[in-house]
């Protein structure tokens, strides 16, 4: 059980450093544009010899889409 000193918090300062409407908007839109290698694709190196994308994307999120596909409109990960 906490003592009263730690429970009574009238002197606490709750500050946010970066959160705000703009930040939320940015999250909703995605911070970084998707690379060209889409789900299930493994990209190869470009003519410049640099590897542009050597990863497979889209392997998470399928269950959410499955539920949406069943007509359960408001589904999200939190609860």
């Amino acid at each position, binding site marked *: 059980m906490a003592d009263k000193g730690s429970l009574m918090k009238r002197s606490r300062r709750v500050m*946010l450093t970066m959160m705000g409407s703009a930040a*939320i908007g940015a999250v909703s839109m995605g911070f970084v544009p998707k690379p060209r290698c889409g789900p299930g694709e493994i990209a190869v190196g470009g003519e410049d010899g640099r590897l542009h994308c050597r990863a497979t994307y889209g392997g998470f999120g399928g269950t*959410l889409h499955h539920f949406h596909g069943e007509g359960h409109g408001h589904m*999200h990960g939190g609860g």
Partner: protein
Amino acid sequence: MQRITCPERDDWRATAEACGFDFHSVGGERYWDERGYYAFTLEEIERQIEGPTGEIDAMCLELVGRAVDDEQYLRRLRIPEAFWPLVAESWHRGDAGLYGRLDLGFTGHGPAKLLEYNADTPTTVFEAAVFQWTWLEQAIERRMIPKAADQYNSIHERLIEGWKRIGKGRHLHLTGVTGDAEDAGTLAYLEDTATQAGLATTMIDIEDIGWREQGGFVDLERRDIGLVFKLYPWEWMFRDEFGAKLLEAPTRWIEPPWKAVLSNKGILPLLWEMCPNHPNLLPAFFEDDPRARELGTSFVRKPLYSREGANVMLISEGVAFAEQEGPYGAEGFIRQAFADMPRFSGQYPVLGSWLVEHTPCGLSIREDENPITGNSSRLLPHAIL
């Protein structure tokens, strides 16, 4: 415990939006509602909410310790066999969890009762930690509530301290369904607290996580994902295509895989079996357990996996009188005795009792005219008077 009507701040919407809380209303209906608040005595908070929350969490951890290496438990919880090693290894390795929320039935008369444990992907944390506190400060300043009012709430500072211990200066990815305003807001808030703890962070949608050709999860810039907070349920990750990769990846997940045990409604009968007649538990049984008959014909039916009240059904004398639709139930159901849930001004309140790093540290309250708390239930502030 009382429900007290009070005036709302005339600028609360602007205040909410200025700090990123732009999901304060859902479908035009209030989600945040400060036209009333719940008042508690300090003794109620300390003895009937804070103390029992710590005790219930301790029981839950004991249960996880029993379950992770026991095939019978894991089968009863319908955790897919392929992921038993992932769950067990994360427990034995001591992978840390950050936070969770117990949903409690409480009336001020008699002990609080555990309704369920949101151990894996709890939302409403920003509202509970920050916006509720802002309300308290401004409502006192504006003389809307007594000057001596206080609040049971140290969630914010404990999250920052938690990140310092868990993150240890590492780069943190945060992932989830970023197209959903509520989840995006929760992720943005947790990112903020991690930043204040000194961690470098990257936000990434769950669908944008990649798998490196040579093995290992990566972000869109092909940077290794070593430590990641996810607001996406373990049971969904297990089903997803990349679920099969989880065992071979060195990634550390927050919440860790062993939380798959606790976010399952099957813990309710298992806790009752482990600690029968505990004052903070309700009798509960798996639906296919013959002992479920002990509940008679009146009980609450819950799917093993469910969020925000989906597929929960209230049955009185054999007749369903309240039900939430949803996609869950394929893995089976549990039955739980009714909690004593009297209404306050026509509303059913459910207490969200928060823990950060297993320390009870705050309270939030959802209320609804419907006895099943769902996605549209309103969140009200609280005060200690």
